[in-house]
């Protein structure tokens, strides 16, 4: 318990962590301020007009669905009329999002429609925060001699490293939850005061909460990964270099190479695909190679679900943690 206390104090007292918290708040502040500045409370005239446009759009959706059904009943083949093979995909009743007044209000922040991308931004920034803080926390300790000092006091490597990881994840979680509350609360306030709340249903809140929880898992994973890679490389820069190297060489470089040599389903080799799948529940990709040669209608789509995403990300993080703890247990410390 003493070690946990000491590590929490050591972590929160570090300048880099404090700087990152300031940057986090600044980024959120700028996002909130920009949204606030670009939103206004709509007049009744604007609302009425938007509602009419939304009603029209909904009616058009119903019409398109009925046209699709009629075409299929008439024997028109998919691909000849621009409608999908399965008209149910166009069924307004099954649509996750029906046009609403918010879609037709301009310069108005509508909470239930615009909070999701803002939530993704929040999660992305928190992931970056966790990764950098995690890498720097252990990296600085390993290079500054802080770890050696600590091990002279507590010659229990696994306990010390585990406590550090625990302190990191605990701190990241608290910072993430607190900053999220402030961030999401600020947007709710903007919607109430200077925009529209929209029509947040129970489903909306459930989806938003699940996305947020999945995002928190990603934040903790990012922190763990930064910590583990920096431990393996004995330096903060090892984690940053690995991250930059992965993005440039694999996500960008290998993707181009895969396209040139016409590899099937290249997206399934990219971590970003699994990350997205976990966060949003399911992502679909188009496989260029699936429908060659094109002879008839072909559905080249494939999907990665949150289960696949969770599996891949968990294996990655667990592997990194296992490798870092194993290496740390055996290695000579400077």
């Amino acid at each position, binding site marked *: 318990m003493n070690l946990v206390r000491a590590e929490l104090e050591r972590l929160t007292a*570090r300048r880099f962590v404090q700087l990152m918290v300031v940057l986090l708040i600044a980024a959120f502040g700028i996002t909130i301020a920009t949204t606030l500045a670009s939103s206004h409370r709509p007049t009744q005239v604007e609302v009425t007009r938007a509602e009419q446009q939304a009603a029209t759009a909904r009616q058009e959706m119903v019409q398109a669905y009925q046209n699709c059904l009629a075409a299929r009943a008439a024997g028109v083949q998919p691909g000849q009329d621009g409608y999908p093979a399965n008209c149910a995909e166009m069924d307004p009743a099954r649509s996750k999002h029906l046009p609403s007044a918010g879609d037709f209000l301009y310069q108005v922040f509508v909470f239930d429609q615009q909070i999701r991308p803002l939530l993704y931004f929040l999660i992305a920034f928190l992931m970056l925060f966790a990764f950098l803080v995690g890498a720097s926390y252990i990296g600085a300790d390993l290079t*500054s001699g802080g770890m050696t000092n600590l091990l002279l006091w*507590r010659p229990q490597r696994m306990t010390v490293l585990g406590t550090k990881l625990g302190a990191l994840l605990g701190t990241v979680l608290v910072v993430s939850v607190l900053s999220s509350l402030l961030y999401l609360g600020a947007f709710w306030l903007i919607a109430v005061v200077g925009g529209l709340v929209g029509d947040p249903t129970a489903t909306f809140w459930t989806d938003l909460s699940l996305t947020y929880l999945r995002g928190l898992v990603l934040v903790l994973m990012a922190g763990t990964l930064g910590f583990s890679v920096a431990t393996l490389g004995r330096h903060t820069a090892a984690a940053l270099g690995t991250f930059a190297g992965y993005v440039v060489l694999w996500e960008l470089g290998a993707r181009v190479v895969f396209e040139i040599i016409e590899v099937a389903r290249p997206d399934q080799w990219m971590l970003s695909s699994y990350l997205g799948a976990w966060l949003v529940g399911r992502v679909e990709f188009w496989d260029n190679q699936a429908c060659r040669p094109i002879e008839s209608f072909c559905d080249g789509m494939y999907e990665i679900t949150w289960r696949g995403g969770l599996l891949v990300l968990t294996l990655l993080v667990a592997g990194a943690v296992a490798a870092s703890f194993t290496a740390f247990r055996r290695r000579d410390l400077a």
Partner: protein
Amino acid sequence: MSTVIEISGLRKTFRRLRGGAHVALDGFDLLVESGQIHGFLGPNGSGKTTTLRALLGLVRADSGRMTVFGEPAPERLPQVAGRVGAIVESPQFFGNFTGRRTLRLLAVAGGVPTSRVDAVLEQVGLADRADERVRSYSLGMKQRLAVASALLKEPELLILDEPANGLDPAGIREMRDLMRDLAAAGVTVLVSSHILAEIQLICDHVTIISRGRRVVAGRVDEVLAGFDHGEYRVRVAELDRAAELLGAAGLTVVGHPDHLVVQQVADPTAIARTLGEQGLWVREVTPLTPDLESVFLELTGTGHRSAGTGPEHTAPPDRGTGRDAGEPERVIELGPTATGSGEVPA
């Protein structure tokens, strides 16, 4: 006296990624008993710090046996860590933390009452600067902070690796007094240093390591006595004639520009008597008692660094043992030793 540290047959090889290996410890032995101030000497790269790191669990030894307070190290180090205070090489701290905060965090992590922080800051003379950031400290102040961190636990065993690094003369003296006070209070001290005069002043026992092996161990006075070759410096008016007379009297004489060194002298009055009887009046007859530095230089084969400037009793070229240059010249053990036996000088 009970054994506090026992190391036997310690081996450690550092391997490089591109191949090649550096043997840091080659069957090293060390024995430190309760109440000793034990000096640990060796040239740069001889394995001192590696030994201390291995003992403290920071480096994994390839083989060998180590115990601290009778507990196998590093396996059962956690059980005795509370009784051991240590600094290893130049310790570094977070520059943004104050000295007091640095110590407080260590105290909290180690379950030591934070009230000890002020006491050790006072003890090492850092109380006045305790609330300044460590980055503003001089090397000597950082060294004091490191010693303070080692003292926090009120250790029964204090391991200090180069504690005088960066200290000014007054600081070195304070460190010496501190070690004496601690020893007087019953703390066993193992101290490695390059300042041989300091070791000779402070320590009652010494172990010298060279190329990863122990080359001498024992009480400091016994080690020095083992290297006393019965040499005397003689200053007299006619050096050549005096050398001739002493040689004729059966003494071994080595000539120098302004004096003679007479070796293997059992009775120094024989020198004055032999020369006086021939009308040569001796101006000076001084026994050349070895000091730790000369012993160190001779044993570790680093004497050539001070050729021409060292004391006269530094081993002359013909005193070598004919060993390979990479081998320690001799292995000597005096007093209680760890395992194995050594060769006692004649």
